[in-house]
């Protein structure tokens, strides 16, 4: 049986890697993959060939002090795992695993063994990444052994909690007991802590010579408590290769012991596992939709209005997205309302000296809100991408559909934006601003910001909606594609692309506003009609750009080939 388990584990791992590599033949995946690699390289891997690892640089490797420190961390992880609230025996299996394994003639012990084996590729990758970033060379073996032992231990603890629940020891009983054990162990260890070692650590850490620092704890009691955890510490931070090998061997024996203990808990895992797996699958499915939080948290909020009889389809889509926004993202509206009320309250009742700061705070939030708001209120094409088949069957042109989709979130984002700008204007009007910031209270500034707020929000929402239309495969990932170089690269490219396109879109408006303001100030003595005209022209230009974008995306939407883009996504 173990042969079959190893076969499926190794083949699945190999096939996944091969399919990911094959996909890189498509430039759409290759480019983000390369960007992702570059990001990880600059984030940490570039030190790979420096010689010494970050931990070695700081003198952590091979010091008794650091081994003790690591052992204490592992010890508390092992103790506190018993205090987690989850007490069902559910282990997460895929749908295929449930269909194949649960009716198969295998024992519960073998099922557990399968589960542990299937987790090993993930354990291997995690250990590899951690050891590349923090350790070097042969220490990868030690990190890997630690991760194997800990993964099996946590499985044992999960089953142990379920067994305790069956024995009548629920979470509320476990929690104080574990808290008492943790406190007792802390107290015992603290009494034996060598405070001189701590003091020495401070100075030696700067010199990168922790090897000179003595062990953290010295007493038979502490040695007994840390007996097993020290094998973890020595495996991760060994003094020598023989010590590394010995620690790894002992850790694997300990892991086997944990497995035996887990198998002997004799807990019926099947029913709970099916429930747990269904929950997990639903969570993954939600995540696959670009991580958008789709959960309906305020289901009782009624739709904002009734759709008028004989309304156009665009109105229905606008109504749908407004309803979705209210039911999914109302919390953001509440948060922004609280921020605005706080700022307003400050302007009336707060200390006068703090007023400019509050005004700047409101203005800062308003400045970044088009970006953040377009993420918070994503009830548009991004939310509807999984129903693209349905959308495409509607009797509405792509152009009108895109416009209607964006109108819903635009209502929310623009409303909040105008509210924040209004609040900032009120505060600046009452505050005594320094001369250099006096323009913030000027009518020109208020008029221009208010006039441009809505088209800027529309432009930003349009850019966000371009991703699901132009690159549906990026916007809607398969459930097993939520991590990795590729996804990181996609996110970075989308972020950079978003900012770049937004700048490009805003540039023509800036080219109108700046000369317009200068003309108003120097030639027309700050005439408000001139300022207003400038703002109207800039806003009209922005709306024209948005209209062009909607036309373009509408045509692209009509060309999207559902089968090509979504059915074939992922391996």
């Amino acid at each position, binding site marked *: 049986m173990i042969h079959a388990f190893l076969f499926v584990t190794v083949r699945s791992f190999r096939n996944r890697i091969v399919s990911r590599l094959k996909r890189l033949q498509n430039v759409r995946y290759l480019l983000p993959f390369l960007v992702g690699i570059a990001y990880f390289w600059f984030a940490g891997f570039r030190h790979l060939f420096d010689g010494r690892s970050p931990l070695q640089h700081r003198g952590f490797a091979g010091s008794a002090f650091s081994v003790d420190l690591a052992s204490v961390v592992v010890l508390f992880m092992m103790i506190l795992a018993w205090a987690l609230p989850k007490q069902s025996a559910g282990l997460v299996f895929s749908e295929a695993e449930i269909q194949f394994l649960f009716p198969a003639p295998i024992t519960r012990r073998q099922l557990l063994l399968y589960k542990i084996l299937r987790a090993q590729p993930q354990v291997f990758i995690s250990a590899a990444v951690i050891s590349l970033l923090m350790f070097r060379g042969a220490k990868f073996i030690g990190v890997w052994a630690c991760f194997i032992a800990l993964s099996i231990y946590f499985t044992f603890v999960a089953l142990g909690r379920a067994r305790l629940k069956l024995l009548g020891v629920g979470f509320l009983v476990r929690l104080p007991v574990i808290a008492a054990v943790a406190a007792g162990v802390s107290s015992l260890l603290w009494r034996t802590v060598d405070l001189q070692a701590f003091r020495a650590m401070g100075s030696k850490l700067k010199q990168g010579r922790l090897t000179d620092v003595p062990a953290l704890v010295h007493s038979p009691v502490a040695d007994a408590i840390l007996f097993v955890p020290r094998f973890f510490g020595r495996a991760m931070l060994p003094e020598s290769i023989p010590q590394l090998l010995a620690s790894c061997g002992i850790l694997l024996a300990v892991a086997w012991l944990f497995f035996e203990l887990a198998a002997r808990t004799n807990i019926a895992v099947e029913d709970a596992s099916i429930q747990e797996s269904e929950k997990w699958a639903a969570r993954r499915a939600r995540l696959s939709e670009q991580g958008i939080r*789709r959960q*309906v948290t305020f*289901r009782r909020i009624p*739709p904002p209005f009734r*759709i008028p*009889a*004989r*309304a*156009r*389809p665009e*109105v*229905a*889509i606008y*109504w*749908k997205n407004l*309803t*979705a926004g209210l*039911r*999914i993202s109302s919390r953001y509206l509440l948060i922004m309302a609280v921020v605005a009320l706080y700022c307003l309250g400050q302007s009336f009742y707060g200390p006068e000296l703090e007023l400019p700061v509050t005004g700047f705070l409101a203005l800062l939030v308003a400045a970044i809100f088009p970006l953040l708001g377009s993420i918070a209120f994503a009830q548009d094409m991004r939310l509807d991408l*999984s*129903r693209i*088949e*349905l959308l*495409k*069957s*509607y*009797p*509405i*042109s792509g152009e009108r559909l895109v416009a209607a989709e964006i109108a819903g979130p635009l209502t929310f984002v623009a409303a909040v934006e105008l509210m924040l700008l209004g609040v900032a204007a009120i505060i600046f009007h009452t505050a005594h601003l320094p001369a250099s910031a006096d323009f913030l209270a000027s009518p020109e500034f208020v008029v221009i910001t208010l006039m441009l707020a809505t088209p800027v929000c529309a432009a930003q929402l349009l850019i966000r909606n371009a991703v699901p239309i132009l690159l549906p495969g990026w916007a809607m990932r398969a459930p097993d594609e939520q991590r990795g170089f590729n996804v990181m690269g996609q996110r970075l490219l989308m972020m950079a692309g978003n900012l770049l396109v937004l700048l490009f879109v805003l540039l023509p408006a800036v080219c109108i506003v700046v000369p317009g303001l200068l003309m108003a100030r120097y030639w027309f003595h700050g005439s408000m009609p001139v300022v207003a005209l400038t703002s109207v022209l800039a806003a009209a230009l922005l709306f024209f750009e948005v209209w062009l974008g909607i036309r373009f995306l509408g045509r692209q939407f*009509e*060309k*999207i*080939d*559902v*089968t*090509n883009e979504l059915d074939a996504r992922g391996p």
Partner: protein
Amino acid sequence: MHAIEVVNLTKSYGSLVAVRDFSFTVKPGEILGLVGPNGAGKTTALRALGGIHPPTSGQVRIGGHDIMAEAVEAKRRLAFFPDEPRLFDYLTVEEHLEFAAAIYGVAEWRAPMNALLEELELAEKRRALPAELSRGMKQKLMIACGFIHAPEVMIFDEPLTGLDPLGIRRMKESVTRRAQQGAAVILSSHLLPLVEEMCDSVAVIQKGERIAYGTIDDLKQQIAQGRGDVSLEEAFLAITSGVPQEGPRT
């Protein structure tokens, strides 16, 4: 005039031709069964008929309107029912129907909505969100949304997936009744007895090509060749096993 007219429909993905030179017509009141082995190109053909993806070449006309050139007019007349119900998580059952009615411009939707909720046994769930519905109920809601505008053309891709026996019976009755009232129906299904029971004609597709087309009786007679009566299942197996066949209609 034909309600559905498909002329030389071809759909390719790069070098792969999923559907090749597919032609047929469906009259108002007629139910056409689209059958074929897995991967034959049925869903691709149906999606092209529903205007969900553009054909590579050929023409699809719904109620006389080209699905590409006059997409809005054509789509206003049809309802597409995918095999997987994809509903809006944040709209209740009733709101789904209100939304669908508005999308298709149905001004008086309350009475049809109530009738559909009763007909499809969803009345008690009218204020439920999709997360609170079973797979079969979601399927029924999807079908109700398609029925709300009384479409002239209905395209079903495996319509009975997830329904219980009573639901299947109700669905068959609903579709047949709408066909009798003049709707043209295309029904893709692997359930050959269902196709035999409901459909007037059938198109068999294999490897993207139409290999048989005609009334069910014609096809059966052609396969039987004087050997007595054969079922559609036997005819289907004979046709798809490599015996070249072509129905009497073109």
